């Protein structure tokens, strides 16, 4: 590559190769992305903030390391931008909420430390639905992100900034978080790859918590290959997160390069019923045929508890959220209402003024589900039903190696289309939510476009801690079709 003006279109692995062969420096790479952000982010609004000076300093350090032959890994000098719920020392973390408008992280999240140790240029802060609650980024207190494929439509959410930044080529790689589909659904709606690892694979230390038993951090990229590389860097047990798992982290990037024998994929019949957009159905059917043609065996399976996953999820996630978000109390590190005159006021008014509507709705719903007299009927019953959902998956994986589904029932929807109707918004996560409840890894890969040119995503769900196999199945498809390389005109 000789034309430096197009650096920002490259994938992580192409940037890695170009840096290694001296075609460009990390400083040139970083400048290319910064100028791309200045060119298109007025339209896309993927970023809440970015620290140009800090990024360029990191890039120069990377170039110095490279000059002295001491690079820290294949992504040394490659920018990775973060959803604005992941702590990076000295940088803002708003969670797209007014209540954290002035907050600056006093420490690094474990994933941020891992990125820095890999030599990555830790970049800007990406937009989301406030505290990761939503499926469209319309709940951001700082205004929504627009879908780069159609600026009148949502990018999905909650990690909509993370998916839109990759689609708009404002970042080669980003991190998001996924509680009920918040990585996979926006990846699908923006035509990029996004992956939620197994619960416990990646440390949650330094991630602003939403629902602690469901949250996982994961990567976005143009290709499955890049996602494998980035996942490898951020994975691993962390003493600071007692729910992170002490299981070894294989080299996912090596694993996907090994020859892979076609295996058995399950198609859950409950996912292919009504409510799916025709273009989505057509595209998924083509992908199924692609796998068949490659020698994979595709079989129908049943996950009978699928329709329960949304109520179970919203009872559990809101309960955990109401408890987690109690920390935003107007006392220690959030903004405080100027009208507060006593202790209760400090809490109630600061939270009333600082939280947006959806966050308030969910905290109230969660408090209700946990309250005296309702705990057994809601929270405990949801946890028991969660066991049934896990059992369904366990049974399915006795038969198949991975499960293939659409990621989202529809392509990107228009702004305002669902924002006043919480239930219809909640239903846009129908295909992704059960994966979080079962703790399993899931990946969304671009698999086609609608007649109007909107991206469509396919989801593959794998067995716990079998990300290598899952990525191999995804890579088999993605390396040939490369649909995440298609670039929207902006």
């Amino acid at each position, binding site marked *: 590559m000789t034309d430096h003006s197009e650096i920002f279109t490259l994938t992580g692995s192409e940037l890695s190769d170009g840096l290694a062969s001296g075609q460009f420096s990390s400083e040139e790479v970083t400048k290319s992305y910064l100028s791309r952000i200045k060119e298109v982010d007025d339209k896309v609004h993927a970023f809440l903030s970015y620290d140009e000076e800090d990024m360029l300093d990191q890039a120069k350090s990377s170039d110095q390391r490279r000059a002295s032959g001491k690079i820290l890994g294949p992504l040394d000098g490659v920018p990775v931008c973060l959803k604005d719920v992941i702590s990076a020392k000295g940088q803002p973390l708003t969670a797209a909420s007014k209540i954290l408008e002035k*907050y600056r992280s*006093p420490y690094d999240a474990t994933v941020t430390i891992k990125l820095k140790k890999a030599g990555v240029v830790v970049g800007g802060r990406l937009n989301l639905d406030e505290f990761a609650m939503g499926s469209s980024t319309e709940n951001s207190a700082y205004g929504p992100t627009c879908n780069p494929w159609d600026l009148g439509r949502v990018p999905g959410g909650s990690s909509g900034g993370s998916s839109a930044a990759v689609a708009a080529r404002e970042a080669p790689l980003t991190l998001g978080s996924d509680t009920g589909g918040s990585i996979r659904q926006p990846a699908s709606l923006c035509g990029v790859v996004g992956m939620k690892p197994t619960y416990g694979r990646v440390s949650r230390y330094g991630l602003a918590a939403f629902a602690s038993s469901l949250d996982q951090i994961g990567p976005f990229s143009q290709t499955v290959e890049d996602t494998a590389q980035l996942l490898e860097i951020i994975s691993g047990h962390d003493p600071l997160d*007692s729910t992170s798992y002490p299981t070894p982290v294989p080299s996912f990037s090596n694993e996907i390069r090994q020859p892979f024998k076609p295996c058995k994929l399950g198609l859950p019949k409950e996912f292919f019923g009504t409510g799916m957009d025709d273009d989505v159905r057509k595209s998924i059917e083509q992908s199924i045929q692609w796998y068949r043609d490659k020698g994979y065996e595709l079989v129908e399976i049943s996950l009978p508890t699928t329709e329960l996953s949304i109520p179970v999820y919203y009872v559990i996630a809101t309960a955990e959220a109401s408890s987690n978000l109690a920390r935003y109390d107007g006392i220690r590190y959030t903004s405080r209402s100027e009208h507060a005159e006593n202790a209760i006021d400090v809490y109630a008014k600061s939270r009333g003024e600082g939280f947006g509507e959806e966050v308030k709705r969910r905290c109230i719903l969660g408090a209700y589900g946990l309250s005296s007299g309702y705990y057994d009927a809601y929270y405990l019953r949801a946890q028991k039903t969660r066991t049934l959902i*896990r059992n369904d998956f366990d049974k399915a994986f006795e038969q198949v190696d991975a499960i293939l589904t659409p990621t989202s029932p529809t392509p990107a929807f228009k702004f305002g289309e669902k924002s006043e109707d919480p*239930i219809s918004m909640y239903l846009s996560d129908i295909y992704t939510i059960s994966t979080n*409840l079962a703790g399993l890894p899931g990946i969304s890969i671009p698999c086609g476009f609608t007649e109007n040119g909107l991206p469509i995503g396919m989801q593959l769900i794998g067995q*716990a801690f079998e990300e290598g196999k899952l990525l191999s199945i995804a890579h088999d498809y993605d390396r040939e079709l490369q649909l995440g390389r298609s670039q929207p005109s902006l």
Partner: protein
Amino acid sequence: MDIDYVANLARIELTPEERKKFQGQLGDVLVYFEKLQEVNVEGVTPTAHAFPRFNVWDEDEPTTGFTSDEALKNAPKSRNDQIVVPKVIEE
């Protein structure tokens, strides 16, 4: 749902408009949740975590934490290394 009671439990002050809007919306959501009451969960063990880990211990070794400056940097009001809050003791 008694919205005032639950909003107070959640320590969130609502505007009259929000109160009215949420009453309807949360009512709809609770109707949607009714599906759960039909599930037979007798004898089923609840799942709190997908892959629970028990007795995760850490060595009891002192490490350095934040300085008070660092810890107070984000506080809305502070003085003499402490956070300032409205008076909480009734006269």
